[in-house]
């Protein structure tokens, strides 16, 4: 015959509860102090994490501003180049004509000196 377990009567549970009970004592001030220290350290860590995050945001913002400025400068440069390119082409043409004319004058002058 299989033995049936004893029922969980209130008396048996009360007896078990007494044996598992935590010892009575007053507050443990050493533990309270330990938590106070740990809390201060955690607060400091949190504060430094926050300021590190803020610094990161400032650095990212600064980097963004620099990129924007570089982009703007690039655009201005492109506009200036677009403005100057035809002028430079025109000037280049004029310079070539001037050079050719100067060479012709120099040649003619040389021939005249030779004849003289």
């Amino acid at each position, binding site marked *: 015959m299989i033995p049936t*377990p*004893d029922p*969980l009567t209130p008396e*048996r*549970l009360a*007896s*078990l*509860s*007494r*044996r*598992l*009970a*935590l010892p009575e*004592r007053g*507050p*443990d001030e050493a*533990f*309270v102090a*330990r*938590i*106070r220290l*740990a*809390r201060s350290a*955690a607060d400091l860590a*949190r504060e430094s994490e926050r300021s590190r995050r803020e610094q990161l945001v400032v650095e990212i913002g600064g980097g963004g501003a620099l990129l924007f400025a570089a982009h703007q400068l690039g655009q201005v440069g492109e506009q200036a180049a677009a403005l100057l390119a035809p002028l430079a082409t025109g000037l280049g043409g004029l310079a070539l004509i001037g050079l050719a004319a100067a060479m012709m004058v120099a040649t003619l002058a040389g021939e005249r000196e030779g004849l003289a």
Partner: protein
Amino acid sequence: MAELALQADEALAAAAALGEGAAFEILVRRHERVVRGFLTRLAGANRADDLAQETFLTAWTRASAFSGEGRYKGWLMRVAWRTFLMDARGRGRRLPEHEGTGEPLEQADRSDAERDLIVEDALGRLKPEDRAAVILCLVLGHPHGEAAQILEMPLGTLKTRVARGSAKLLELLGDDDDPDT
């Protein structure tokens, strides 16, 4: 400070949520015995204080998470239970769960310290959820409904775990609780 000490847990918790360290310190002083006792019975004496420290730090940094519904003590115990579970999972294992022989543990002629070790050993043979249910209901006197909320399990499951854990402990420790006999 003296005025603060007279306030109810919930008022102190609200002050702690606003960053008032003195209010939180009173809560620590009030509840450290129970939180450390719960964790000692749950995780063993070696881990209990570290887990209790983590529990109180979480309660401080997440003080605003206490909504004011239910008792602050219940909320704190739930934080302790989650801290214990996260620690056990972080270690990649559940707490020691011996198979046991089912034989009652020898208790005759033992000192208090030895009897404590026997109780700890017997508790270690239960599943963590059964152990927590027994400790909350039988040792710390939480009503079943509150214990079910703390352990985040249905009420019926909680009752089953308390009954199963108690039966197993009685089987292991025997019925006699008089140290002189």
